[in-house]
């Protein structure tokens, strides 16, 4: 098992997501969300690996949600939790205009938590329920069941605005290091490698820095 810093977590998440075919902008969001989740004790990279594995065959665009005005509909073969999280971050009223919102067929809904925390109304919290799991999200806190496991399968989610968490909001724990399974790490690194450019005769000849 390998313990990564938050900085390494964010950088790897960004590169792997880009390598999986997402745009740079969404990939940067993956770096942000993976870091945020990890700082809360939830291994962002493990969940990201499950998400990227689910979208790898069909590509990210097949898993993007659809928006018609304020009407949100999911993708046929499962909606990417990361892309949906970005949309909620961009347009919070999609989930804040009602006290309760049902979202169907979401892949790795844990990613929504990183974004809901950014938009949670003052004095309120949010509850995210799926597969018998219940997460509670405050402006800077995340309560999640330790039994939560990564999954590539789409699942239905219920989102509710609830009174402020009774537990105290925990501060960010940036020094927290979570270990990552080497197999998962290898999978993400392989995706990240798709963003690298192999050396060529021209690049070797040109050199680039140091004493090259």
């Amino acid at each position: 098992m390998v313990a990564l810093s938050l900085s390494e977590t964010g950088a790897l998440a960004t590169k792997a997501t880009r390598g999986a075919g997402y745009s740079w902008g969404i990939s940067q969001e993956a770096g942000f969300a993976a870091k945020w989740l990890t700082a809360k004790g939830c291994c962002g990279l493990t969940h990201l690996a499950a998400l990227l594995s689910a979208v790898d065959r069909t590509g990210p665009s097949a898993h993007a949600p659809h928006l018609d005005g304020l009407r949100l509909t999911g993708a046929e073969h499962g909606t990417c939790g990361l892309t949906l999280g970005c949309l909620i971050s961009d347009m919070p009223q999609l989930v804040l205009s009602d006290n309760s919102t049902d979202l169907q067929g979401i892949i790795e809904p844990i990613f929504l938590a990183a974004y809901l925390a950014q938009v949670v109304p003052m004095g309120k919290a949010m509850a995210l329920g799926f597969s018998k799991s219940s997460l509670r999200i405050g402006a800077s806190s995340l309560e999640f069941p330790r039994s939560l496991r990564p999954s590539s399968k789409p699942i239905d989610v219920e989102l509710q605005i609830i009174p402020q968490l009774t537990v105290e909001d925990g501060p960010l724990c940036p020094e927290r290091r979570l270990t990552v399974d080497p197999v998962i790490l290898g999978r993400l690194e392989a995706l990240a490698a798709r963003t690298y450019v192999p050396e060529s005769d021209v690049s070797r000849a040109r050199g680039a820095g140091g004493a090259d």
Partner: protein
Amino acid sequence: MKPSPDKQEMVMRSPDRVMRLARLGAFHQSRLSFMRILLRRLRREKWSFSQPVWEIDEKGVGTAVLCAHGPERTYSLVAFSHDLPDHQRSDRVIATAWDATFTLFDGTPDNDDIARLKGNVPLQEAGRVTATELSLSRANRSARLWSYVVDCLSKGHQPDPDTIGEVGYLMRTTAVYGSGKFGAADRESIAARPEFSAPFQVEMLNVYLIRTFVALLVEHMARSKGGAVATILDPAIRRMIGIGNSTGLGMAPFLVNHQSLLHAWINAREAALARVRTLEHSNKHSAETFTTLVARALENAESWQTTHPLYTGRLADLRDDLRRLKDHISTGALSEPHPWDKIVTWSETNLSTEGQEQLVSLVLEPHGDLIDDLADTMACEESEDFRIDGQVTLEGMIATIERHYDWALDIDHTEDPAHARFWYVSEAKLEPRLGERHEEPGGEREQPLAVSRDVALLYEALKTEPPSGLLATFLLMQPQHRHAARRVQTLQKLPYSEIRDNLIDADMTPIDMLRCKLSFFGATKFDPRSDRWVRICMYQHAPFPDELDRVGDDWIYPAALKT
């Protein structure tokens, strides 16, 4: 007295003037440079230093620990010194052996810590450190100076100051990693500590302690060679020894990838300049200090050596500029009302860009009381500016782009020279590189650093959609524009957050980006080795730990050593 924020803002130079590569690439260190911020703190808080471990043999091989004790915490440089054969000494990022390797440890390491670090730190990228380590770095000896200085001291002589001054360092760092790299502590975990609240303070402390270690090591080796005859460095000569650094393209994307931070740095410097420009009069102290430092800056420029064609001309210009500035102030320019504003305005038509930016640093020097507090504004929480507001209309985004990115829209990115290059990450070195789009493969794996082109593409795409549409909907349909949309919204809030030039143009000079960042570190003696690689000096003339309370904050402009 500090001007009101409104007045300060009124006289700040416009981003359109400041944020050009040619100007950023002419920046000089200043009072707000990170190594000067650090040394002011060490002096103010009376930090003490100790050397609990020195297990180095006569060949210079072994382990040392140097501790810096602050008011609340201790930090320790753990140094592993090696005997590297000359043929293995390389500054390249793919090198696997160095003359010395280091980590900055959070606290005082015990024997178990040192044993663990000994198995990892000398391996650098191939090793692994933990959250108790704040940095990872390495250095190589100067082939030109090391043996010469050891020989001189071993025979009881001092090295020749001119020879020392020509090189400026005995060791040159080839990488200083912090902020979570290779397992080290994340910036977030230490940012709340006052001593690390300003940017890059870990790295600056790390390099400062390396410099101390290097001076101790060279004296140790002279003693081993010369025995009782050997002497130690004269403090005045010792201060001439800085730490060299060799910086390549790896550093260049930082300024593009950290928009909020770039704004914070430039904004602090421009705010400082604006505060000084609002002063109605100079006083005896400020006029005398400025006059003295202009003369010393000229001496500095005379001793600044480079043979690279990119810099020989501008260095000659700088020397001419400083002579012209000296003449100008001798005519009574500082006695006039609003002298600092007038002298800066005068520089805009009488000095080269290099000279203008040197002047900016110089006018800040006598005004520490007025500007030093701006150091507290140079760090920022970048995640605060990360979120995109998707509820703005496309019409609104178009207007924002037209207002803030007119310089990008003016570029024809379809013409060859304007998209001649692409930034990528090298598979072999995992480092940023700059490729020639029409000569090298890999353009499809381009990094998102072609800001002007990407914002122009966003602009064109926005214009094809209904103006009343929302950005969130647009980005959902066209996620390829998301990174550019974020940049646009960031620049709207933070005007100094974008380099206003085409970073993939055939004529773009990457070392301008390196110079900008390194000037904020406090680097001097920029010596380009190509358009993408520069050697510099850090802490040259700075006080050593035992003289922090005796050498003033003007150490960066030293008086010539009388020999």
